[in-house]
């Protein structure tokens, strides 16, 4: 096996001993500095996204109150120093609920986006590399799947399986995964025709080996971009579902759920109830969108302007 024509192999060249991961760290560092220099808006989005992650992970420490701490004396208080985002109709602190909502969003968005990306990768790589009749069949299935609006599939599946965190994550992951397989497939189809793939085929490398060693590493840039854009999509879809009362069931403080249910009729007395969760949602989705766009421009110029 001396035939090393894969770009990922030729890039690995210098025979210096480097501790594992150093090259990756170096690449990430270079990408980060480029992002700050060339795409300041995208970088700002990335920073905002990190803030969101931080809030989600440390919600238990950051939140001044429990998300379900009912306090009848402090009902519907407008924003103040004690309650920066005000309180709701049960006297619960809206800031704390938003922070715990971020925690739920982090858990759901990261796991569903990871699942979605894996599903896209498997379907896209298999369908794109094998081609022929299998590809045709898989693509017709994807066509059919994409004819259904995301939200409608979600509503139906959740209504059948019953709303829970697991249902929401699994359905969203599968749903967005099947849709996203198109992007992976088109990348695979163009990589498949490269000389190094033909070389590997002619020296008799097995299909799994070719897929793993030659195809997957070379379609990673669009896959990483796909993952980032999926996070925003998951957060939006999950909040829409929660808004319809089909998300993670209450009292879990999902951002979508905070805008609906019994709190809704109190918004006329406490308009801050309508503002806080919506602002959180918009900011986080905006951040992931601009970050994803910038990442796409840096990593994968072919996809520019495709959305």
């Amino acid at each position, binding site marked *: 096996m001396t035939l090393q024509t894969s770009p990922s192999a030729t890039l690995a060249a210098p025979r210096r001993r480097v501790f594992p991961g150093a090259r990756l760290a170096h690449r990430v560092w270079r990408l980060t500095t480029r992002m700050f220099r060339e795409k300041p808006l995208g970088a700002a989005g990335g920073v905002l996204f990190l803030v969101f992650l931080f809030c989600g992970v440390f919600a238990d420490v950051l939140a001044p109150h429990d998300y379900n701490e009912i306090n009848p004396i402090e009902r519907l208080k407008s924003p103040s120093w004690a309650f920066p985002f005000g309180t709701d109709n049960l006297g619960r602190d809206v800031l704390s609920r938003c922070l715990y909502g971020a925690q739920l969003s982090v858990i759901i968005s990261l796991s569903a986006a990871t699942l979605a990306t894996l599903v896209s990768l498997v379907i896209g790589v298999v369908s794109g590399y094998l081609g022929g009749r299998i590809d045709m*069949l898989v693509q*017709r*299935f994807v*066509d*059919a*799947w*994409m*004819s*259904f*609006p*995301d*939200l*409608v*599939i979600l*509503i*139906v*599946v959740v*209504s*059948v*399986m*019953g709303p829970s965190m697991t249902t929401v994550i699994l359905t969203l992951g599968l749903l967005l995964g099947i849709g996203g397989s198109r992007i992976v497939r088109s990348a695979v189809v163009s990589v498949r025709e490269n000389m190094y793939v033909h070389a590997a085929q002619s020296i008799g490398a097995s299909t799994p080996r070719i897929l793993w060693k030659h195809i997957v590493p070379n379609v990673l840039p669009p896959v990483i971009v796909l993952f980032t854009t999926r996070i*925003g999509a998951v957060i*939006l879809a999950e*909040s*829409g579902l929660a*808004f*319809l009362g*089909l998300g993670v069931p209450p009292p879990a403080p999902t951002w*979508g759920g905070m*805008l*609906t249910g019994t709190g*809704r009729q109190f*918004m*006329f007395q406490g*308009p801050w109830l*309508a*503002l806080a*969760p*919506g602002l959180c*949602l*918009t*900011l986080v*989705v*905006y951040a992931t*969108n*601009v970050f994803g*766009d910038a990442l796409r421009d840096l990593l994968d110029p072919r996809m520019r*302007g495709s*959305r």
Partner: protein
Amino acid sequence: MSTYAIRRLLGLIPTLFFASLIVFVTVRLIPGDVIDMMLSENDISAQQLSREQLLATLGLDKPMWEQYLHWITGIVSRGDLGHSLWAGDSVWDQLAQRLPVSFELGLIALVFALVLAVPIGVYSAIRQDTAGDYITRSFSILLLAVPSFWVGTMVMVFPSIWWGWSPPVEFVRFADDPLQNLKNMLLPAAVLGMGLSAVTMRMTRTMTLEVLRQDYIRTAWAKGLDERRVVWRHALRNALIPVITLVGLQAPLLVGGAVIIEQIFVIPGMGLLLIDAVSQRDYPVITGVFLVVGVAVMLINLAVDLSYGLLDPRVRQG
């Protein structure tokens, strides 16, 4: 052109088959205990039925493939989507009442999105990299991030706090009072069209930029035509063709968004039918709406593909 249309129509058959499978299998995922739950909770839809009757009504007492065959032949031969467990009337009748409402909402939203997006997108392209371009671009990215249900909620809450005015929520049928109906539909449609207009704005900008770089545009400038002519007569026509296709592909966005908008503004369309059916566990209605929505999106895509052929001579001959 006709061979293109026929090929496209034939290609629809396997997709339709898969779509029917998706609908069937998804709804058939009902775990057995849901039946018990429906019975024990004195579910509205299960009240007058015994366990066996309920299983038979849902068609769960036969093997899966037989259920599918029965279901699909009923639809293909008689257009029979089953009967509502709750209201007892045929699902098709319910859909026939609701479809036009959702269609109207979607159409107004589409018109709104295009009227807003195309001029702004073109402006953004011909003034590339000016302050105006940056502002409109940031605006469109922001529009993509704002959830429509949040905007819908704020539209309901804030005008009523500030001016004591809130959007009307009683539904007026188009046949009864067309003007009032349109007036009531305008605001929900605008909220629904928001996301689509953001997507369209970005696409119009990209496509116009692409076309403006081409040789025939330079020729048009060289002939001494003014900007209005070059942009509107020469560039826009070609730029808009791909935009139309891409807008057509966004049809699921409108249909899915309609579910939420109809819920907020209490518009009795397909979305509200679906949500009501979900809360009553009315599975035949859920199945019906699910299938019809998918097929509707497919037909929209088909229409867009075919119109693309009509609009662009290159596709017609190619």
